[in-house]
């Protein structure tokens, strides 16, 4: 088996007296979809934030391609090719899609003007339109503010932004929670296509049907610890629920 491209070992994180993560582990192999599941408060979002550099961990190890790394900021994670689609999408809704895609990574104008901080808006717009087309994310008006888009279209912008930049891993925190049936199917198809292009996806979801539909592996968190791992095909919905609620104990299994 290939070695993991991203690995989290024995991660601990407390907020005051609340232990959000204690001994959580996760490994992501090249070109796979891993589902990260667990009950509310199990630590899924905290683990995602730790691995995307939003929060700093108290204890534990994060390894990229087997080498230990420290993520102090989201940029640190990004520089290792790790992108995140946050549950709230983290879009600046008054900006247009291209500005959102390139926010913080703007293309400078060539020459002296670029050094002064001038942006090449045309290049950013052109490149965004091209990448959105490749990903099959079609928007009627690519120049209008994100605020004028529907919920599903905004989701498309947030997902596309992550996919455009991700080299290794994309975390998706509840990408389908707010979507209808058809839009959910589209996001799941997009996840598969990303995986087929060699970028791994970590899917955080409450929806057992979604998880079973796209995941190659499933990792279960409970009370901040990793309590179970399933391979595709081994997992049945009942087992997953049992692992999430604690009626099935299999630490270190699979």
């Amino acid at each position: 088996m290939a070695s993991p491209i991203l690995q989290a070992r024995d991660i601990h994180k407390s907020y005051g007296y609340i232990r959000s993560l204690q001994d959580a582990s996760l490994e992501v192999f090249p070109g796979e979809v891993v589902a990260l599941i667990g009950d509310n408060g199990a630590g899924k979002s905290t683990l995602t934030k730790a691995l995307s550099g939003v929060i700093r961990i108290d204890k534990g190890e994060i390894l990229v391609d087997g080498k230990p790394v420290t993520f102090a900021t989201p940029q640190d994670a990004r520089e290792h090719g790790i992108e995140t689609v946050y549950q709230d999408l983290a879009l600046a809704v008054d900006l247009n899609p291209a500005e959102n895609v390139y926010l913080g990574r703007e293309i400078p104008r060539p020459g002296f003007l670029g050094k002064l901080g001038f942006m090449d808006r045309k290049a950013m717009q052109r490149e965004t339109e091209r990448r959105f087309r490749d990903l099959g994310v079609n928007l009627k008006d690519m120049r209008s503010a994100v605020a004028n888009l529907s919920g599903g279209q905004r989701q498309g912008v947030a997902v596309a932004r992550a996919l455009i930049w991700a080299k290794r891993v994309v975390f998706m925190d509840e990408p389908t929670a707010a979507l209808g049936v058809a839009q959910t199917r589209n996001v799941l198809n997009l996840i598969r296509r990303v995986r087929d292009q060699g970028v791994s996806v970590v899917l955080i979801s409450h929806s057992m049907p979604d998880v079973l539909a796209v995941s190659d592996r499933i990792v279960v968190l409970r009370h901040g610890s990793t309590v179970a791992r399933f391979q595709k095909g081994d997992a049945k919905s009942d087992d997953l629920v049992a692992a999430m609620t604690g009626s099935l104990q299999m630490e270190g299994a699979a």
Partner: protein
Amino acid sequence: MSTIESSKDNAEVNDPAARPQPSLLRRLLVDRPEMMIILALVIIAGFFVAVRPDAFLSGINIRNMSIEAGMMMFLAVGMTYVIITAGIDLSVGSLLVLSGVCAVLVMRMIGIDHPAAPWVGLLVALGCGTLWGLLNGFFVAVTRLSPLIVTLASMGIALGIARLLSGGVDITGVPRSVVNTIGIGRVMGIPVIFLIATAFAVLAGVILHRTRFGLHTFAIGSNPQAAERAGIKVRRHLVMVYAISGFCAGLAGYITLSRFASTTIAGHSMDNLRAITAVVLGGASLFGGVGTMFGTSVGVLIPVVLASGLVIVGLPSFWQEVAVGIVLLAAVLVDQWRRSSRSR
């Protein structure tokens, strides 16, 4: 290829904003809020021109209006940046006074006939404004106090210090050369104050709309958390934005000195609200993320044109305050309508 695109039928049904061909008016209102205010300015100015073309379009009236608008533009430039970050800066009027007092005191100290005095005075005014702005920014961004309270407090502190330094009375001592070249100076008949204000506004507008710094300003006002996650140093940026506002107040303080050849301690208690009015009239949103420097410059003109026009047509100039208030309410209503008409 079934991807996000196939959801668009679905989205269109639920989402009025995604309907094809939104009306022209709607597009203008949603995407270019400053267009409304240009229309308002054209109507107001057109009315005065129609009633009293001789007086309204006379050289002296146009010059006076351009100086009034230019003076207000300095503060409004900084306020535009601050409001786009969803902040507010109430301290600008007091800071204008404080910067002017400090500049005069220093110029008197080195002797107002000293050849370097004008430049030293300028540096003192700009430095004083910028430092004060940095302090405002520190309290807003780092201690995360409400900008309304921080700048309300620093407004009082700045004016108090200005009065303490000056003994409560206006002090003269502005180099003659400053008054002559800037205050009453003209180039080809155009007041120098207006030229400086225009150049300054264009520069600030280019930075706001063409550079990364400007884009980050909009992003922070739109969604600070998203900006943070996109790698923008939000706190540092906010400190800089309040420093810009302070710099503008310092510059305005110096220009004010050149115009009146004296400090004008009691004359700026409403400047902060006037600047906010201009920016909001110009289509900026107090919720942040929206605004243009062009809109602000139009927003600066409306109260000025109203004030002079009403006097010319023989109405009491108090109507200006009434009219500006009504236009301001309309601008805020349009902004609210615009926000609620967006899809959620």
